[in-house]
């Protein structure tokens, strides 16, 4: 069953057609990768999916409900979580607090409850903290809990961001270049990690440049070029697709 279905979606910026009539779907429990040369519209596609941009036309259906007109926080509340290509951690907050914010969608204490410090919010805070710590444990960064998030190394920041995205128990995770700026060993760790996340039952959609990582973990690969879909298939089939080789791999090698 398709968890996410994208139908004929388009987005134009002034004279630039960033995404043109793209359709695809993501199976529940799978890992799907979006690849394409620079400027192919991958990040725009992510921004459309997560509600940061409104599509000019087309529909995005998640869990059977249209979400393309919703704002980012509503989409996040429905269990579709994301990370950013350029890490966007919350400054002046510890790593743990960053992850705890990720739990926002699964908690409900509001202004009044917060100000009055109602007893039930204590339990909720406890639950948020424990869940955040267990995720950090899962990602191997629990020692960093009290460090200032923006003072961490690049790889550690990526991990915090991932923990934050997972903290809301999403059904689906959008990862925007999770291996960018990582060395080979870290990239390999990341690949394993993404597989483990999938094994938790979370569907993953990832934009990535690193071909080895994509081929290693994805169940399906979507290829974009100049905003258009040119292939959507299993990794091996995509690798053999002459069109893809021409626009993407060919250029990449050259």
């Amino acid at each position, binding site marked *: 069953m398709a968890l996410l279905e994208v139908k004929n979606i388009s987005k134009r910026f002034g004279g630039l057609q960033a995404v043109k009539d793209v359709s695809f779907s993501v199976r529940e429990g799978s890992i799907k990768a979006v690849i394409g040369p620079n400027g192919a519209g991958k990040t725009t596609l992510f921004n459309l999916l997560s509600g940061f941009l409104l599509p000019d036309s087309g529909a995005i259906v998640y869990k059977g409900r249209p979400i393309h007109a919703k704002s980012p926080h509503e989409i996040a509340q429905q269990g579709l979580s994301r990370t950013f290509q350029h890490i966007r951690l919350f400054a002046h907050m510890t790593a743990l607090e960053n992850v705890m914010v990720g739990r*926002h969608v699964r908690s409900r204490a509001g202004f009044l409850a917060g100000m009055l410090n109602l007893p039930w919010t204590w339990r909720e805070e406890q639950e948020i903290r424990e869940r955040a710590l267990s995720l950090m444990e899962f990602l191997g960064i629990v020692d960093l809990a009290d460090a200032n998030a923006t003072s961490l190394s690049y790889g550690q920041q990526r991990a915090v961001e991932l923990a934050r995205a997972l903290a809301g128990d999403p059904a689906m995770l959008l990862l925007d270049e999770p291996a960018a700026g990582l060395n080979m060993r870290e990239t390999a760790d990341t690949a394993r990690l993404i597989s483990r996340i999938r094994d938790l039952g979370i569907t993953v959609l990832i934009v990535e440049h690193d071909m080895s990582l994509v081929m290693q973990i994805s169940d399906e690969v979507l290829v974009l070029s100049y905003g258009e879909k040119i292939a959507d298939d299993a990794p091996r089939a995509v690798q053999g697709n002459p069109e893809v080789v021409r626009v993407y791999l060919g250029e990449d090698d050259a």
Partner: protein
Amino acid sequence: MRTSRFIPILALLGAVVLVQLLTLAGGKAFFLTQLTMSAYYTLIVIGLCLLMGFAGQISLGHAGFFAIGGYTSAVLTTLDLAAYKENPLVAMLAKAGVLTARQDLYGGSLLSVHPWAACVVAVLLAFVIAWAIGIPVLKLKGHYLAMATLGFGTIIYSIVLGTQRFGAADGISSVPPFPLLFGVSVSGDSSLRVLNYYFAWLLVTVAMVLLLNLISSRVGRALRSIHGAEDAAGAMGVDTARFKLSTFMLSAVLAAVAGVFLTHYNGGIGPSEASIMKSVRYVAIVAVGGMGSLWGTLIMSVVLNFLSLRGYFGSFDDAVFGGILIVIMLFAPDGIIGADLRRLVGKIANYKQQNSNKSQ
């Protein structure tokens, strides 16, 4: 963690009592007047601190909300409805206890709105205006937000200054006392000075407890995340628009409450309370208090307002606040007290964690 939050509150209460006893012992009970006025200004400033330091939204128009509170209460409680006694609406309100008959200073009798009812109206009005103005204004960022809030403040100022009912440039005087319980009232009467001092500081303490609770709750975390990276906060499911708006409204209500009580305490209000320079002062106090530190803001508010109200800065009052803004923003944008306190809190937290790690 939960108990540690109350130690500073107890310290605050202790300090409030201690200062009163010291002024009593030192024969300087008159200091309490300025300390009481400072308390009300502190109420605005800690609300602004929540907005600026935690939600990261600047407001250069907070004196406007103070003025809305103060002027609404002043107008309603000095309004004379005696001539309309027969009007059914007026009669009904009088019956409901909303209106109250009292004597003015020269023995004439007045029928005006009861201070409690006026207070409710004033706070509700600030609440509604903050809501109405907050929705569009908080969509703006950076210079645009600064300019829009400045514009709001300017509009309130020119309305106050241009309207006869608000006393134009003279403001409103002979505002009656605000009755509390047991015959005690908020007023400048020197026999009630000590009680007024305690009432004002009790109000600040309650507000501090509420705000401290808030910032260490889920909402506080969400606010700081908005400050840190607004789009990422949205992607984590934080309804940034609603949280910013609620914070704006909360701080506006605090400013209006301060306006109501200070107006009754002073027995009047003038347009200087709505001026842009006042709003800038509040921003200066938040800045010097450390932007994100309620305690720093509280301490600096008391110190600066107290000194200013006692005239220590003489004719350089505005210059002092201008200088503070520049020096703090140039050399210590995180504030002076804020950084110190945070480091201290950090140390305590680390210490506790080490202990708990050991016990595990």
